[in-house]
């Protein structure tokens, strides 16, 4: 994978993680599986879990610890009110960016 693709993906991790949580709370591995559906993103756990920890630290995500049948309690993440506002801004920016970049790259009209 080329360097620029890595850079693009890096920039999209936060948006993707928050997008994966807009449908409801999920624990780390569950979020990872949701993100795995977007194959070109190729985001792995060593990227996602630190981002989850940072977003929780920044107050954009809240954590609920619940027992798990598989073993240790699971940490369920969900968007806080601040996180939802932040995600709405990110969505809006992404829409503009997507349109502009498509226009430049493919000659599409926005």
């Amino acid at each position: 994978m080329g360097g620029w693709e890595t850079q693009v993906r890096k920039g999209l991790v936060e948006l993707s993680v928050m997008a994966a949580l807009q449908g409801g709370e999920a624990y780390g591995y569950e979020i990872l599986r949701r993100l795995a559906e977007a194959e070109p993103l190729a985001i792995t756990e060593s990227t996602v879990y630190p981002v989850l920890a940072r977003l929780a630290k920044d107050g954009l995500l809240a954590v609920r610890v619940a027992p798990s049948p598989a073993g240790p309690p699971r940490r369920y993440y969900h968007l806080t009110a601040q996180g939802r506002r932040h995600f709405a801004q990110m969505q809006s920016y992404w829409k503009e960016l997507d349109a502009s970049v498509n226009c430049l790259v493919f000659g599409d009209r926005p």
Partner: protein
Amino acid sequence: MTADRMELPPEVRSKVDAHLDAVEQALRRSGAGREEARSITDDVETQILDMLTTRAAGRTPTVEDASAVLAQLDPPEAYTGSAEARTGAGEAQAVVLPAAPPRPPAKPKFCRTALLALLGFVPIPVFVMLAITLGPFVARVQPVPGGAQAVPSVFRIFICCDVIPLIAIPLIGMLWTTILGIVAIFQIHRAKGQRRGMGLAIFDAVAAPAALFLIVIVLLLTGT
């Protein structure tokens, strides 16, 4: 890692724990705090146990299962580069940069104030030379009966012009040296080893008062 764990055979448990410990160490090396590292390893542990449960499909997981699961995960070293993800893109560089090597202690500089204070002593030799040169003339500027003076009037102007500086300039010089000497002592003391010249500063501070004290003693003893 948490206390409430899925029952695993000890060898499987130790293999999983070794991976989790390595991940935690990698995170700590990259600057993550204890709590942050712990929450990330908890997520990794949950993933491992979920994957083991799925793979074992109801039977007890074996070491081979653990090896197969761990092989699908990112290696612990991958978390060393997670500083960017944890801090946000703009801040990452500040976190991962190695600490600058400690600077060798700077050689203490000589206190300039202590040197500057020495300038106060310059007028003293001039004062002595002038005193020797003009002393005899001054001694002769004594009114004599009848209003006549032993020194010609042209010299009187020179003497009057010289006598005031003769006394004032050395006194100002001594005051200058003493004050700057005291200032230098404080500067050296506050510099905590970064300035040297304490001996000279003390000399500056005490030399002039000591000299004046000696002169007074000598004058008193000689009855002048």
